[in-house]
């Protein structure tokens, strides 16, 4: 068990990685991240990149829904806004990838503020329903505003270019995805070390008291929505340069539900939970596909069941985790860590 762990300054007490053990394992993890692309094949790298995109989006949603308590059913639409913005910027204006990233984020944040602002003066689930409306309306715009979005066929996008280097392989793209993910995760974690993050949680837990403590509810809900949408937009930009195409079918309502599943399974309000949930929910469809592949010998039509099975499993995961483990995988992780920290004692 951990002994001799005492802090001599408040700064040391407030650090995110507080023990040398934690810092050691963080170092190991970062090294593993750096080594991974050299040992993994293309498929795994593709999955890693896809997971990275999911992490960025999930972290954003967790800030809004997990921490600030405002359910969003439109997260996929904001990812889509980011994706389409990037696609338009790169194909029409020839802007470089690194500029598309923040601009997509800002575009998504802008629409997030417009969508959210009217409902934020109200308590309860009106914001949730407004995000549902946003999801439906933006889906419609993606499909029907053909001159701008390319309609059902979407927009094809060339590979990203960073400082003259073309990111046309999964390997190269990985080295862009990982730093962005690290930046986003750090920024989100930083929020909760300051009054802004605390204000979000206060709004979720007891908004009347939060207001009486001096927190302007409207302002901070808007912050949460803007930040969440910004991250969604960044995820969208990454997504479009990863897939080299953007079409409306990537951003339907059930994708918003998938993001919700990520943060519920991973752990609401926890940045680490967003990471766990994103990894988990990106792996589930793949695992399912592999499983069904096993049965394909018996019945070729079995692949038809892939999509509905996925839908059922997403829903089941949401319900099961909310009923039995509402704090998600992050909580399970914490219990495991505690076990090792306290062993051989129980408390």
């Amino acid at each position: 068990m951990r002994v001799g762990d005492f802090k001599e300054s408040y700064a040391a007490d407030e650090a995110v990685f507080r023990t040398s053990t934690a810092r050691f394992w963080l170092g190991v993890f970062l090294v593993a991240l750096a080594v991974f692309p050299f040992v993994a094949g293309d498929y795994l790298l593709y999955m890693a990149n896809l997971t990275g995109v999911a992490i960025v989006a999930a972290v954003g949603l967790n800030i809004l829904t997990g921490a600030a308590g405002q359910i969003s059913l439109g997260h996929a639409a904001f990812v889509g806004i980011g994706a389409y913005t990037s696609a338009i910027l790169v194909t029409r204006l020839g802007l470089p990838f690194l500029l598309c990233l923040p601009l997509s984020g800002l575009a998504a944040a802008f629409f997030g503020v417009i969508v959210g602002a009217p409902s934020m003066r109200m308590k309860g689930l009106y914001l949730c329903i407004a995000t549902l409306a946003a999801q439906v309306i933006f889906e419609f715009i993606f499909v029907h505003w053909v001159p701008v979005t390319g309609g059902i066929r979407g927009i094809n996008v060339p590979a990203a270019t960073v400082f003259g280097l073309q990111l046309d392989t999964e390997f190269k793209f990985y080295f862009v995805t990982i730093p962005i993910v690290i930046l986003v995760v750090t920024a989100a974690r930083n929020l909760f070390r300051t009054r802004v993050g605390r204000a979000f949680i206060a709004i979720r837990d007891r908004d009347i008291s939060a207001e009486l403590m001096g927190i302007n509810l409207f302002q901070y809900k808007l912050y949460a929505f803007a930040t969440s949408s910004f991250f969604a937009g960044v995820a969208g930009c990454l997504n479009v340069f990863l897939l080299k195409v953007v079409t409306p079918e990537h951003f339907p309502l059930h994708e918003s539900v998938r993001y919700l599943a990520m943060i519920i399974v991973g752990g609401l309000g926890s940045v680490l939970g967003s990471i766990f949930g994103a990894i988990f929910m990106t792996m589930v469809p793949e695992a399912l596909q592999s499983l069904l592949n096993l049965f394909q010998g018996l019945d070729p039509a079995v692949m038809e069941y892939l999509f509905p099975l996925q839908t059922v499993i997403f829903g089941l995961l949401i319900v099961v985790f909310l009923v039995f483990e509402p704090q998600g995988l992050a909580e399970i992780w914490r219990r495991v860590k505690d076990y090792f920290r306290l062993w051989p004692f129980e408390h």
Partner: protein
Amino acid sequence: MDILGQLLVSGIAVGGVYALIALGFVIIYKATSIINFATGEFMMIGAYLLYTFMVMTGLPAIPAFLLVMAGAALLGMLVERAILRHMLGQPTISIVMVTIGLSSILMGLAELIWSTGFKNFPPLFPRAPIIVGDIIIRSNLFWGFVIAMAAVIVFALIFKYAKVGVAMRATADDQMAAFSMGINVRNIFTLAWSLGAIAAALGGVIIGNIGGIQPTLGHIGLTIFPVVILGGLDSIGGAVIGGFIVGIVENVAGGYLDPIVGGGVKAIAPFVVLVLILLFRPYGLFGKEDIERL
């Protein structure tokens, strides 16, 4: 002018059905304060159940109908007991997210059981369309409207006068007081979910009869959100009026704008209405504004 008249009448007719489905939502919200995101899926299950009973097992219409209502009640009871009971005391957003998960489960299950193909209903009503002047109303739309309105009236009467209806309103108002008065609040919750599921399922049967069934039928259920926001989340009368308004707006907007935009206006017109309502009158036409106590 004819076209407008036609659109208005069709709008009212389908609006009546929306009112019924919205009623399924409002009953649950009124009694339990839960926003049921799976209302559309309840609706879809109702349609599929009727298809199963009539087409797959060949039952005549009326017993099939009754079985559908029983099946829906069972579904509502199951959801309440197996899932929502465990969530008592949890924050509302968790419970709402459970209904979101539930909608996913039901939609996937429907696809697994009945597969994705589009299915046609057997004819339930006499074929002849109803003609009023220059306006033609399809028979299944007309009869569907009649049944929907009858159901709405029955539910409204139950809520207002029957003992269980009063008990539900009492529970919605103040659970603790209802407990003290000897009302079995748990049973009330179960009843509310069953009634809500029945209303939604009936609506689903009617819609399925009009347009055919597929697992995405549940998406029509999303339209009830504009309806209930317009009418006020906890108002039965509001659900009815909201249903009519949304039905009319949908049809009129679709009729006039579809040619310009290339289709799909019908699906988003209600949501544009929703956005406008949230901007100007968020508690809807008849909803109650919450007074919070500290």
